[in-house]
Protein backbone atom coordinates (compact mmCIF):
# COMPACT_ATOMS: atom_id res chain seq x y z
CA UNK A 1 0.00 0.00 0.00
CA UNK A 2 0.94 3.63 -0.36
CA UNK A 3 0.51 5.50 2.90
CA UNK A 4 -0.49 9.15 2.78
CA UNK A 5 -0.45 11.22 5.98
CA UNK A 6 -2.20 14.57 5.85
CA UNK A 7 -3.27 17.47 8.03
CA UNK A 8 -4.22 21.10 7.48
CA UNK A 9 -5.06 24.11 9.59
CA UNK A 10 -2.46 23.50 12.26
CA UNK A 11 -2.29 27.29 12.79
CA UNK A 12 1.08 27.29 14.51
CA UNK A 13 2.55 30.20 16.44
CA UNK A 14 5.31 30.53 19.05
CA UNK A 15 2.99 29.35 21.84
CA UNK A 16 2.42 26.02 20.04
CA UNK A 17 6.07 25.35 19.25
CA UNK A 18 6.85 21.63 19.49
CA UNK A 19 3.23 20.62 20.00
CA UNK A 20 2.98 18.41 16.92
CA UNK A 21 6.53 17.16 16.78
CA UNK A 22 6.03 14.07 19.00
CA UNK A 23 3.25 12.87 16.69
CA UNK A 24 5.18 13.85 13.55
CA UNK A 25 8.15 11.82 14.80
CA UNK A 26 6.00 8.67 14.42
CA UNK A 27 5.44 9.33 10.69
CA UNK A 28 8.21 7.08 9.32
CA UNK A 29 6.45 4.13 11.00
CA UNK A 30 3.04 4.78 9.49
CA UNK A 31 3.34 6.94 6.37
CA UNK A 32 5.33 7.43 3.16
CA UNK A 33 4.65 11.15 2.81
CA UNK A 34 3.15 14.01 4.84
CA UNK A 35 0.82 16.45 3.11
CA UNK A 36 0.14 19.84 4.70
CA UNK A 37 -3.11 21.38 3.44
CA UNK A 38 -2.50 25.04 4.25
CA UNK A 39 -3.18 27.40 7.15
CA UNK A 40 0.02 26.24 8.73
CA UNK A 41 0.37 29.55 10.60
CA UNK A 42 -2.08 31.88 12.34
CA UNK A 43 -1.14 35.12 10.60
CA UNK A 44 1.41 34.19 7.97
CA UNK A 45 4.36 35.87 9.70
CA UNK A 46 7.93 34.66 9.24
CA UNK A 47 8.11 34.14 13.02
CA UNK A 48 5.21 31.70 12.85
CA UNK A 49 6.56 30.06 9.70
CA UNK A 50 9.82 29.34 11.54
CA UNK A 51 7.80 27.43 14.15
CA UNK A 52 6.25 25.30 11.38
CA UNK A 53 9.65 24.85 9.75
CA UNK A 54 11.14 23.52 12.98
CA UNK A 55 8.16 21.20 13.39
CA UNK A 56 8.74 19.50 10.02
CA UNK A 57 12.52 19.66 9.65
CA UNK A 58 14.18 16.25 9.27
CA UNK A 59 11.01 14.21 9.71
CA UNK A 60 12.18 11.15 7.78
CA UNK A 61 9.34 11.29 5.25
CA UNK A 62 8.92 13.79 2.41
CA UNK A 63 6.74 16.79 3.26
CA UNK A 64 4.58 18.46 0.61
CA UNK A 65 2.63 21.61 1.47
CA UNK A 66 0.36 24.29 0.11
CA UNK A 67 -0.31 27.56 1.86
CA UNK A 68 -3.71 28.70 3.09
CA UNK A 69 -5.44 32.04 3.50
CA UNK A 70 -3.96 32.52 6.99
CA UNK A 71 -0.48 32.05 5.53
CA UNK A 72 -1.22 35.00 3.22
CA UNK A 73 -2.55 37.33 5.92
CA UNK A 74 0.77 39.12 6.56
CA UNK A 75 1.24 39.59 2.78
CA UNK A 76 4.47 37.61 2.85
CA UNK A 77 3.54 34.21 1.43
CA UNK A 78 6.84 33.95 -0.46
CA UNK A 79 8.81 34.34 2.77
CA UNK A 80 6.62 31.75 4.48
CA UNK A 81 7.14 29.33 1.58
CA UNK A 82 10.90 29.96 1.54
CA UNK A 83 11.21 29.19 5.25
CA UNK A 84 9.30 25.92 4.80
CA UNK A 85 11.45 25.00 1.79
CA UNK A 86 14.58 25.64 3.86
CA UNK A 87 13.22 23.02 6.25
CA UNK A 88 12.96 20.54 3.40
CA UNK A 89 9.30 20.85 2.40
CA UNK A 90 8.03 20.96 -1.17
CA UNK A 91 5.77 24.01 -1.16
CA UNK A 92 3.43 24.03 -4.14
CA UNK A 93 1.38 26.76 -5.76
CA UNK A 94 0.13 25.86 -9.19
CA UNK A 95 2.69 23.14 -9.66
CA UNK A 96 3.36 19.49 -8.98
CA UNK A 97 6.11 17.40 -7.50
CA UNK A 98 6.96 13.72 -7.42
CA UNK A 99 8.32 12.28 -4.19
CA UNK A 100 9.68 8.82 -3.51
CA UNK A 101 7.58 7.25 -0.80
CA UNK A 102 8.37 3.68 0.17
CA UNK A 103 9.45 2.84 -3.38
CA UNK A 104 6.40 4.41 -5.00
CA UNK A 105 6.37 7.53 -7.12
CA UNK A 106 3.83 9.75 -5.39
CA UNK A 107 2.77 12.72 -7.49
CA UNK A 108 1.25 15.70 -5.71
CA UNK A 109 -0.30 18.66 -7.50
CA UNK A 110 -0.88 21.61 -5.21
CA UNK A 111 -2.58 24.96 -5.10
CA UNK A 112 -4.14 27.04 -2.38
CA UNK A 113 -7.31 27.21 -4.42
CA UNK A 114 -9.95 29.77 -3.59
CA UNK A 115 -13.67 30.31 -3.10
CA UNK A 116 -16.53 31.06 -5.45
CA UNK A 117 -18.99 28.36 -4.50
CA UNK A 118 -20.45 25.27 -6.01
CA UNK A 119 -22.55 24.33 -9.01
CA UNK A 120 -25.75 26.34 -9.22
CA UNK A 121 -24.71 28.59 -6.35
CA UNK A 122 -21.45 30.06 -7.54
CA UNK A 123 -20.05 33.50 -8.16
CA UNK A 124 -19.64 34.70 -11.73
CA UNK A 125 -16.95 36.77 -13.41
CA UNK A 126 -19.20 39.80 -13.70
CA UNK A 127 -19.62 43.32 -12.40
CA UNK A 128 -17.17 45.21 -10.22
CA UNK A 129 -13.44 44.68 -10.81
CA UNK A 130 -12.95 43.18 -7.35
CA UNK A 131 -15.71 40.65 -8.01
CA UNK A 132 -14.23 39.67 -11.34
CA UNK A 133 -10.80 39.33 -9.78
CA UNK A 134 -12.23 37.11 -7.05
CA UNK A 135 -13.53 34.65 -9.62
CA UNK A 136 -10.47 34.93 -11.84
CA UNK A 137 -8.18 34.08 -8.92
CA UNK A 138 -10.22 30.97 -8.25
CA UNK A 139 -10.13 30.04 -11.94
CA UNK A 140 -6.36 30.53 -12.15
CA UNK A 141 -5.84 28.25 -9.15
CA UNK A 142 -8.09 25.57 -10.65
CA UNK A 143 -6.47 25.80 -14.07
CA UNK A 144 -3.03 25.40 -12.54
CA UNK A 145 -4.24 22.37 -10.59
CA UNK A 146 -5.52 20.73 -13.75
CA UNK A 147 -2.28 21.44 -15.62
CA UNK A 148 -0.17 20.14 -12.74
CA UNK A 149 -2.15 16.91 -12.53
CA UNK A 150 -1.87 16.41 -16.28
CA UNK A 151 1.89 16.89 -16.14
CA UNK A 152 2.13 14.34 -13.33
CA UNK A 153 0.28 11.87 -15.55
CA UNK A 154 3.16 12.16 -18.00
CA UNK A 155 5.71 11.54 -15.27
CA UNK A 156 4.67 7.95 -14.67
CA UNK A 157 3.48 8.44 -11.09
CA UNK A 158 2.08 5.48 -9.21
CA UNK A 159 -0.54 7.70 -7.60
CA UNK A 160 -1.57 11.32 -8.14
CA UNK A 161 -2.95 13.46 -5.35
CA UNK A 162 -4.58 16.88 -5.55
CA UNK A 163 -3.59 19.00 -2.53
CA UNK A 164 -5.50 22.22 -1.88
CA UNK A 165 -6.47 24.42 1.02
CA UNK A 166 -9.94 25.35 -0.22
CA UNK A 167 -12.44 22.60 -0.85
CA UNK A 168 -13.30 21.19 -4.27
CA UNK A 169 -16.67 19.79 -3.12
CA UNK A 170 -19.50 20.85 -0.81
CA UNK A 171 -19.83 17.43 0.93
CA UNK A 172 -16.76 18.00 3.10
CA UNK A 173 -18.18 21.35 4.24
CA UNK A 174 -21.20 19.75 5.92
CA UNK A 175 -21.40 21.31 9.38
CA UNK A 176 -20.43 24.77 8.18
CA UNK A 177 -23.17 27.37 7.63
CA UNK A 178 -24.51 27.05 4.09
CA UNK A 179 -24.22 30.81 3.68
CA UNK A 180 -20.42 30.74 3.79
CA UNK A 181 -19.86 27.85 1.35
CA UNK A 182 -18.81 30.29 -1.43
CA UNK A 183 -15.91 31.35 0.81
CA UNK A 184 -14.87 27.81 1.54
CA UNK A 185 -14.32 26.34 -1.89
CA UNK A 186 -15.08 26.16 -5.56
CA UNK A 187 -16.46 23.58 -7.96
CA UNK A 188 -13.72 24.71 -10.37
CA UNK A 189 -11.22 22.71 -8.30
CA UNK A 190 -13.35 19.56 -8.57
CA UNK A 191 -13.78 20.08 -12.30
CA UNK A 192 -10.01 20.34 -12.67
CA UNK A 193 -9.50 17.17 -10.63
CA UNK A 194 -12.09 15.24 -12.62
CA UNK A 195 -10.75 16.49 -15.95
CA UNK A 196 -7.13 15.61 -15.25
CA UNK A 197 -7.76 12.62 -12.97
CA UNK A 198 -6.44 11.92 -9.48
CA UNK A 199 -6.42 9.10 -6.94
CA UNK A 200 -7.23 11.32 -3.96
CA UNK A 201 -7.99 14.96 -3.20
CA UNK A 202 -7.00 16.45 0.15
CA UNK A 203 -7.96 19.86 1.51
CA UNK A 204 -8.44 21.83 4.73
CA UNK A 205 -9.95 25.26 5.54
CA UNK A 206 -13.38 24.12 6.77
CA UNK A 207 -12.89 23.60 10.51
CA UNK A 208 -16.52 22.68 11.15
CA UNK A 209 -16.79 20.49 8.06
CA UNK A 210 -16.75 16.76 7.50
CA UNK A 211 -13.85 14.48 6.57
CA UNK A 212 -15.38 12.50 3.71
CA UNK A 213 -16.55 13.58 0.28
CA UNK A 214 -16.27 12.70 -3.38
CA UNK A 215 -16.14 14.59 -6.66
CA UNK A 216 -18.74 14.08 -9.37
CA UNK A 217 -16.13 12.04 -11.23
CA UNK A 218 -15.66 9.68 -8.28
CA UNK A 219 -12.41 10.98 -6.79
CA UNK A 220 -12.36 10.61 -3.02
CA UNK A 221 -12.00 13.90 -1.15
CA UNK A 222 -10.77 14.23 2.43
CA UNK A 223 -11.03 17.34 4.58
CA UNK A 224 -8.01 17.06 6.86
CA UNK A 225 -8.43 20.30 8.80
CA UNK A 226 -7.05 19.44 12.23
CA UNK A 227 -10.28 20.37 14.04
CA UNK A 228 -12.12 17.94 11.74
CA UNK A 229 -9.81 14.93 12.07
CA UNK A 230 -9.12 15.53 15.77
CA UNK A 231 -5.54 14.30 15.49
CA UNK A 232 -2.08 15.58 14.53
CA UNK A 233 -2.69 13.96 11.11
CA UNK A 234 -4.68 11.21 9.45
CA UNK A 235 -3.31 8.38 7.31
CA UNK A 236 -4.90 7.09 4.11
CA UNK A 237 -3.82 3.82 2.51
CA UNK A 238 -4.00 3.83 -1.26
CA UNK A 239 -3.95 0.55 -3.17
CA UNK A 240 -0.64 -0.45 -4.64
CA UNK A 241 -0.60 -0.12 -8.44
CA UNK A 242 -0.06 -3.30 -10.43
CA UNK A 243 3.36 -2.11 -11.58
CA UNK A 244 4.59 -2.04 -7.99
CA UNK A 245 2.85 -5.26 -6.95
CA UNK A 246 4.55 -7.30 -9.65
CA UNK A 247 7.69 -5.31 -10.35
CA UNK A 248 10.61 -3.50 -8.92
CA UNK A 249 8.70 -1.97 -6.04
CA UNK A 250 7.57 -5.28 -4.56
CA UNK A 251 9.73 -4.86 -1.50
CA UNK A 252 8.07 -1.60 -0.65
CA UNK A 253 4.65 -3.21 -0.70
CA UNK A 254 5.43 -5.74 2.01
CA UNK A 255 6.01 -3.20 4.76
Amino acid at each position, binding site marked *: *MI*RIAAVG*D*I*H*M*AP*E*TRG*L*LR*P*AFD*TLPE*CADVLLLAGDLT*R*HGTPEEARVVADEIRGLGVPVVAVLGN*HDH*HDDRPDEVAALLRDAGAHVLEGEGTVVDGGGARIGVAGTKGFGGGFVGRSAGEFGEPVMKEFVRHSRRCADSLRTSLERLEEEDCDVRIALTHYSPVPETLAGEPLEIYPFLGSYLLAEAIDTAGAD*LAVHGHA*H*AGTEHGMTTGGV*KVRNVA*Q*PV*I*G*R*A*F*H*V*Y*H*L*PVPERLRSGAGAQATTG
Partner: protein
Amino acid sequence: MNAHDAGSAGGPPPAQSPEYRVAHLQDRLASGELGELGVRIEIRGEAVLVTGTVPSARCREDVLSTVREELTGLEVHCDIVVSEASSPDHAEELS
Protein backbone atom coordinates in the same frame (compact mmCIF):
# COMPACT_ATOMS: atom_id res chain seq x y z
CA MET B 1 -37.04 54.77 11.80
CA ASN B 2 -34.10 56.54 13.45
CA ALA B 3 -32.14 55.78 16.59
CA HIS B 4 -34.32 58.05 18.69
CA ASP B 5 -37.45 56.24 17.58
CA ALA B 6 -35.88 52.88 18.35
CA GLY B 7 -34.86 54.04 21.82
CA SER B 8 -38.31 55.32 22.61
CA ALA B 9 -39.76 51.95 21.58
CA GLY B 10 -38.00 50.42 24.58
CA GLY B 11 -35.24 48.40 22.88
CA PRO B 12 -31.53 49.20 22.63
CA PRO B 13 -30.32 51.55 19.91
CA PRO B 14 -29.84 49.54 16.72
CA ALA B 15 -26.07 49.81 16.84
CA GLN B 16 -26.11 48.28 20.33
CA SER B 17 -28.32 45.33 19.47
CA PRO B 18 -26.78 41.95 20.31
CA GLU B 19 -26.82 40.95 16.64
CA TYR B 20 -24.59 43.83 15.56
CA ARG B 21 -22.36 43.42 18.59
CA VAL B 22 -21.85 39.76 17.71
CA ALA B 23 -21.13 40.68 14.07
CA HIS B 24 -18.53 43.26 15.17
CA LEU B 25 -16.99 40.73 17.54
CA GLN B 26 -16.70 38.17 14.75
CA ASP B 27 -15.03 40.77 12.57
CA ARG B 28 -12.62 41.75 15.36
CA LEU B 29 -11.67 38.11 16.01
CA ALA B 30 -10.94 37.56 12.32
CA SER B 31 -9.30 40.84 11.36
CA GLY B 32 -7.66 41.77 14.65
CA GLU B 33 -4.51 40.40 16.16
CA LEU B 34 -6.06 37.02 16.95
CA GLY B 35 -6.76 36.16 13.30
CA GLU B 36 -9.36 33.68 14.47
CA LEU B 37 -11.87 32.56 11.85
CA GLY B 38 -12.71 29.20 13.34
CA VAL B 39 -14.90 30.39 16.19
CA ARG B 40 -18.66 30.52 15.77
CA ILE B 41 -20.70 32.98 17.81
CA GLU B 42 -24.47 32.57 17.93
CA ILE B 43 -27.22 34.25 19.88
CA ARG B 44 -29.21 31.66 21.83
CA GLY B 45 -32.15 33.24 23.59
CA GLU B 46 -30.79 35.77 26.08
CA ALA B 47 -27.26 34.36 25.92
CA VAL B 48 -24.44 34.05 23.41
CA LEU B 49 -22.90 30.67 22.54
CA VAL B 50 -19.24 30.57 21.48
CA THR B 51 -18.02 27.34 19.85
CA GLY B 52 -15.08 26.16 17.79
CA THR B 53 -11.65 24.57 17.91
CA VAL B 54 -8.48 26.59 18.49
CA PRO B 55 -4.81 25.57 18.39
CA SER B 56 -3.89 26.25 22.02
CA ALA B 57 -5.25 26.91 25.51
CA ARG B 58 -3.75 30.38 25.33
CA CYS B 59 -5.64 31.05 22.13
CA ARG B 60 -8.86 29.95 23.83
CA GLU B 61 -8.20 32.36 26.70
CA ASP B 62 -7.43 35.18 24.26
CA VAL B 63 -10.65 34.54 22.36
CA LEU B 64 -12.70 34.40 25.54
CA SER B 65 -11.15 37.58 26.85
CA THR B 66 -12.05 39.41 23.64
CA VAL B 67 -15.56 37.95 23.66
CA ARG B 68 -16.20 39.09 27.23
CA GLU B 69 -14.79 42.54 26.53
CA GLU B 70 -16.87 42.99 23.38
CA LEU B 71 -20.07 41.51 24.82
CA THR B 72 -20.03 43.10 28.26
CA GLY B 73 -23.44 42.74 29.85
CA LEU B 74 -24.43 39.68 27.86
CA GLU B 75 -24.35 36.15 29.22
CA VAL B 76 -21.71 34.10 27.37
CA HIS B 77 -21.65 30.31 27.16
CA CYS B 78 -18.29 29.01 25.95
CA ASP B 79 -17.64 25.63 24.37
CA ILE B 80 -14.30 26.21 22.66
CA VAL B 81 -12.03 23.17 22.52
CA VAL B 82 -8.30 22.90 21.87
CA SER B 83 -7.04 20.88 18.90
CA GLU B 84 -5.95 17.32 19.60
CA ALA B 85 -2.28 16.79 18.75
CA SER B 86 -1.92 13.03 19.19
CA SER B 87 -1.05 10.48 16.51
CA PRO B 88 -3.95 8.67 14.83
CA ASP B 89 -4.75 5.19 16.13
CA HIS B 90 -5.74 3.81 12.73
CA ALA B 91 -5.54 4.49 9.01
CA GLU B 92 -8.32 4.60 6.45
CA GLU B 93 -8.15 2.04 3.63
CA LEU B 94 -9.08 3.67 0.33
CA SER B 95 -9.94 1.10 -2.31
